[in-house]
């Protein structure tokens, strides 16, 4: 932030967005035309705003107190800046990777996942996106609708998507998540291994519970 403000920033690609000018508004009109580029643009905007907000808060506190105490007083804003930067990185990496999927049959559910990921992040930090009217109420409603649409579209592929992770039962070690879905007989079988089932009557009955009932 300091180098960008001072006009002498030499940043690698990961941070280049910090040097871009701010935009007034997000460009999408409906969630179906919310392009990869627009999503990245909007997450860049949010991260950039937060980084410079934190920077201004930090500078103000440093002026008023000391460098160290100024850092302490700005630390919540600073953590938010870091999170925004990382989320931008995650969104961008996800979109860029999915864009390389050549086969349309796998690109479609992956694209739904990218949209769900981005829309979910937007709704959980909606305040940031609504600030200064960067997105409108109508756009925020579109995002919400977009989430519902993604859920619906992903539903038929949900099991196939988790199957594609290629987890064998030998690796997963989960009775609930077993591949064949025969969970309930397996749960009963698993419970037989409990140490408490080694005998029909536990010593605790002789020692405590039996005598208690005779008192």
């Amino acid at each position, binding site marked *: *932030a*300091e*180098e*960008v403000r001072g006009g002498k*920033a030499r*940043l*690698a690609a*990961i*941070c280049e967005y910090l040097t871009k000018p701010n935009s007034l508004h997000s460009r999408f009109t409906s969630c179906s035309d919310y392009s990869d580029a627009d999503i990245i643009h909007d997450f860049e905007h949010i991260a950039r705003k937060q980084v410079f907000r*934190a*920077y201004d808060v930090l500078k103000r506190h440093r002026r008023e107190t000391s460098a160290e105490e100024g850092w302490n007083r700005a*630390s919540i804003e*600073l*953590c938010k*800046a*870091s999170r925004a*930067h*990382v*989320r931008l*990185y*995650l969104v961008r*990496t*996800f979109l860029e*990777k999915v864009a390389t*999927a050549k086969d349309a*049959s*796998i690109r*479609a*559910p992956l694209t739904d*996942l*990218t949209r*769900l*990921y981005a829309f*979910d992040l937007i709704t959980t930090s909606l305040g940031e996106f609504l600030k200064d009217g960067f997105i409108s109420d109508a756009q925020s409603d579109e995002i919400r609708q977009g989430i519902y649409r993604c*859920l619906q579209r992903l*539903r*038929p*592929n*949900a*099991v*196939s*998507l*988790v*199957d*594609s*992770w*290629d987890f064998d039962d*030998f690796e*997963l*070690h*989960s*009775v*609930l*998540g077993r591949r064949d*879905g*025969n*969970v309930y007989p397996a*749960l009963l079988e*698993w419970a037989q291994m*409990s140490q408490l089932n080694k005998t029909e009557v536990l010593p605790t009955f002789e020692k405590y519970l039996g005598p208690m009932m005779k008192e």
Partner: protein
Amino acid sequence: NPDITKERLAGTFDIRQMGSFLYGGDEVLQRRTKILEFVKSIPELHDPFPVDFMTREERVENVARKVVAMTNYVDFIDTSDFFGEGMYFQRLIMRRDLHPLSLHFVMFLPTIQGQGEDDQLDEWLSLVAARGIIGTYAQTELGHGTNLKNLETTATYDPKTEEFVLHSPTITSAKWWPGALGKSSNYAVVVAQLYTQGVCRGPHPFIVQIRDLETHKPLKGIRVGDIGPKFGFNSADNGFLLFDNYRIPRQNMLMRYSKVEKNGTFIAPKHSKLSYGTMVFVRSIMVKDQATFLAEAVCIAIRYSAIRRQGEIEPGAGEVQILDYQTQQFRLFPQLARAFAFMFAAYEIRDLHMKVSEQLTEGNVDLLPEIHALSSGLKAVITWEAAQGIEQCRLACGGHGYSLASAFPDIYTFAVAGCTYEGENIVLLLQMARFLMKA
């Protein structure tokens, strides 16, 4: 189960193709299958009965037995591909648990590789790789975690004997938490404040023998033991370690970057972040680990939600699969999306790490601050969001998610530990913020 079969028939894509895209090629999937079949075929690599029903001592013994067998069979995999084959092989055998050599291969060996000078590499690397010694990495102290600057353990150079004197001046300076330090390891890379010529030079790493190689008893001047049961990782002997003016040779300070000459002259590193390579490597492994934990949790929750029938959406129409409830989808599908996003980020950060490592060997440190900051932030955000996601998956399975049979407690306690180890998350976010403010 007919419900899960119906789901598989409804899918609109080839899962093999998706898996290939996810893991980076069909040959990777083929290797996974081969490694899985291999592990399944070797009974020595299996648990005698589910770990969930073992006592702590049984668990500790079980992982010690398995890790010896695992490393005996390690030639079956491509050991240069730790990120892919190494992690998978280990996961199949060790489940979600640590073992006596966890830090030996993930921290001890890479630290020596990354921070040892040539003579030190000659002396130690083959010994470590051949399991001639058992090493761990002891940095965190009882009173100080991520804040390296204020570690209390001292390493004071004595030019008369050309030795460092390691000392724990306070109770809070006890090394606390390192995996396998308590009972298994006989060596550790210890991070201590270096003092030469009466001046504190900051924290530096030292190779320190802590137990006798024959008897395995702690050496004179060393107090070491297990820290007790924990929220997770209960097969691991996480340890404490205290020094009482314990002496080690000058050559045991890792000197690729900083150096101490025989007369005590200190030579500072050319770049203050040169020693960060190991941290970036470990964090790239962590991001992949966390993505996998979240993916496992989502896999369990979605499969279970497909076979669990409960309640009716349309009265009289019969109980529905709980995956048909929009609220259940809203709990699970964002976690599914996250798992994919995190996995792709893990591969990306691994590639970046390799690029930076290559540049470092040529003396180019341009990308180092950037990737160090990014890996700190990614680790912090991903461990937290993965833990929240796993917990959401557990809750989405009702009471059964509380049983160890579900694997959720196992996955959660392993994953959430990542919020704390290898840098507490808030400290890491602030580290990254420092970089962003400077930029």
